[in-house]
């Protein structure tokens, strides 16, 4: 590993200034992904700006009933927070489905959003990768790609985003708070990550030097009927082959509100807008759920070895929607 400078920021403004002063800077949160990538040689920062001790470690209810989660709140604390468990169960479930107890204690909310793909070609300097080194090609396209994307991929990149948390945030209509040169701004969580297109090196819409300061969950007076379900190769401590986060409100047997997002299928959490459109106003039945999910997954373009993901994602989504409908009717 190349040696590097280190600055511990005590305010958001100071962090942004320290970052702007050095072109090779990286923000350090819990480090669970960044330090690993530095060991692998994928990340080679000149200086780390440590933002893990910024005063952004609180979960607070705002006057309008929304919930603001500071960027340095650890994944385990967020999953265990009473307001998160009670009002946004899909978020708590998604966090607990990810990583290990040790990693969740270190990983931050902001860092979780900014973690990089676990595509083995991205992590291996001896292999071509357009995300790591634009223009070198994609080793996974004709290589080992069982875990890779079926939706929204490009010839440049077929990687998936690994976060579980981000999938729940997308379905829950959360917003990401950013701070940069031009002050603060908010981006819908579902639009924070990008599709690869011709620039797979850019995972998100974040601007150079911008810092995630928090995540805001929309106003909820009670429990948002929501759930997260994940399929993986082993029962625990593995990335998603496919996952789904869903929000479903049923009124008089009809769907009044629907939010649906898939994980493990694309370069970003895949917000299923087409399925949501098909769901709202329709009957809350398994047949209607199947039709809506099929409308979304019709856009899937599986690769040689990952066609299994389409029926897997379909089954997960229909199951979660059906359970939510049953719970809502009860």
């Amino acid at each position, binding site marked *: 590993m190349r040696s590097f400078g280190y600055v511990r920021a005590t305010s958001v403004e100071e962090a942004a200034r320290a970052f702007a002063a050095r072109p090779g800077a990286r923000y350090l949160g819990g480090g669970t992904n960044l330090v690993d990538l530095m060991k692998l040689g994928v990340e080679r920062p000149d200086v780390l700006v440590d933002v893990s001790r910024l005063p952004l470690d609180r979960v607070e209810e705002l006057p309008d009933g929304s919930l603001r989660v500071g960027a340095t709140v650890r994944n385990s604390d967020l999953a265990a927070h009473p307001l998160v468990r009670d009002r946004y169960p899909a978020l708590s479930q998604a966090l607990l489905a990810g990583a290990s107890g*040790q990693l969740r204690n270190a990983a931050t909310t902001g860092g979780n959003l900014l973690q990089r793909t676990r595509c083995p070609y991205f992590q291996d300097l001896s292999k071509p990768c357009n995300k790591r080194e634009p223009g070198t090609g994609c080793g996974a396209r004709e290589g080992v790609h069982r875990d890779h994307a079926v939706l929204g991929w490009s010839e440049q990149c077929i990687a998936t985003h690994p976060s579980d948390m981000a999938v729940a945030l997308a379905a829950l209509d959360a917003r990401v708070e950013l701070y940069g040169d031009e002050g603060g701004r908010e981006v819908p969580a579902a639009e924070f990550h990008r599709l690869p297109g011709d620039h797979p090196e850019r995972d998100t819409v974040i601007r150079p030097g911008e810092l995630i300061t928090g995540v805001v969950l929309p106003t909820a007076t009670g429990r948002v009927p929501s759930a997260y379900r994940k399929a993986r190769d082993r029962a625990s401590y593995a990335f998603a082959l496919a996952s789904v986060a869903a929000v479903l409100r049923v009124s008089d047997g009809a769907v009044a509100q629907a939010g649906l997002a898939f994980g493990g299928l694309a370069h970003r959490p895949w917000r299923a807008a087409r399925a949501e459109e098909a769901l709202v106003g329709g009957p809350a039945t398994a047949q209607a759920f199947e039709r809506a999910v099929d409308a979304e997954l019709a856009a899937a373009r599986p690769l040689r070895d990952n066609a299994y993901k389409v029926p897997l994602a379909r089954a997960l989504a229909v199951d979660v929607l059906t359970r939510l409908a049953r719970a809502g009717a009860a």
Partner: protein
Amino acid sequence: MGSDMHDSTSGGPSGGGGGAPRGAGAGPPPEHRSATTLRVNGKPHTLLVDHRRVLLDVLREDLDLTGSKKGCDHGQCGACTVLVDGRRMNSCLLLAVSLDGSEITTIEGLAGDGEELHPLQRAFLDRDAFQCGYCTPGQICSAAGAMSEAAAGHPSHVTDPALPSGRPVPLDRAEIRERLSGNLCRCGAYPRIVEAVRDAAGQDAAGRTEGVIR
């Protein structure tokens, strides 16, 4: 940061002489090193650390605390698990410089000062919960962290969602297996590890999940 780097030196167990901050020597330029104070098992150590140094390497190589083990060095196996300010973490992924002022507990300090073993250490011996023993310090530190988390009401992936927030979570077999999934054992001692943690967590042998697993 950095202003007191000449004020104190390591009190590491194999130190004693010298007086120069340990972890120094040839290497990176001065701006790539920082004086860092860690309280390890109750004793303060101030070291001039290369920013690249992870906590695991400081413990093993600078402080001669070799109980924490390096397995994968990528946060995947859990052999390096220690408690940082009471919370279990993978010491191979923590930059030492970022922990300035933190309280670290390793397997060597888990039981405190006396001769008595920690209940988890006792239970691992009683249940013969290891074969080669390489993963054991990490398993025990991880279990200690998991027990605190459960007592504080932290849910896991297998916790019944109907359990009210904040209520301590009983550690049955399914909970232990899920909560310790970040610790791999290549000898496959898992069944006895689960039993040992159950003993230490005070679960009755005829607990409610008896017979569900296996």
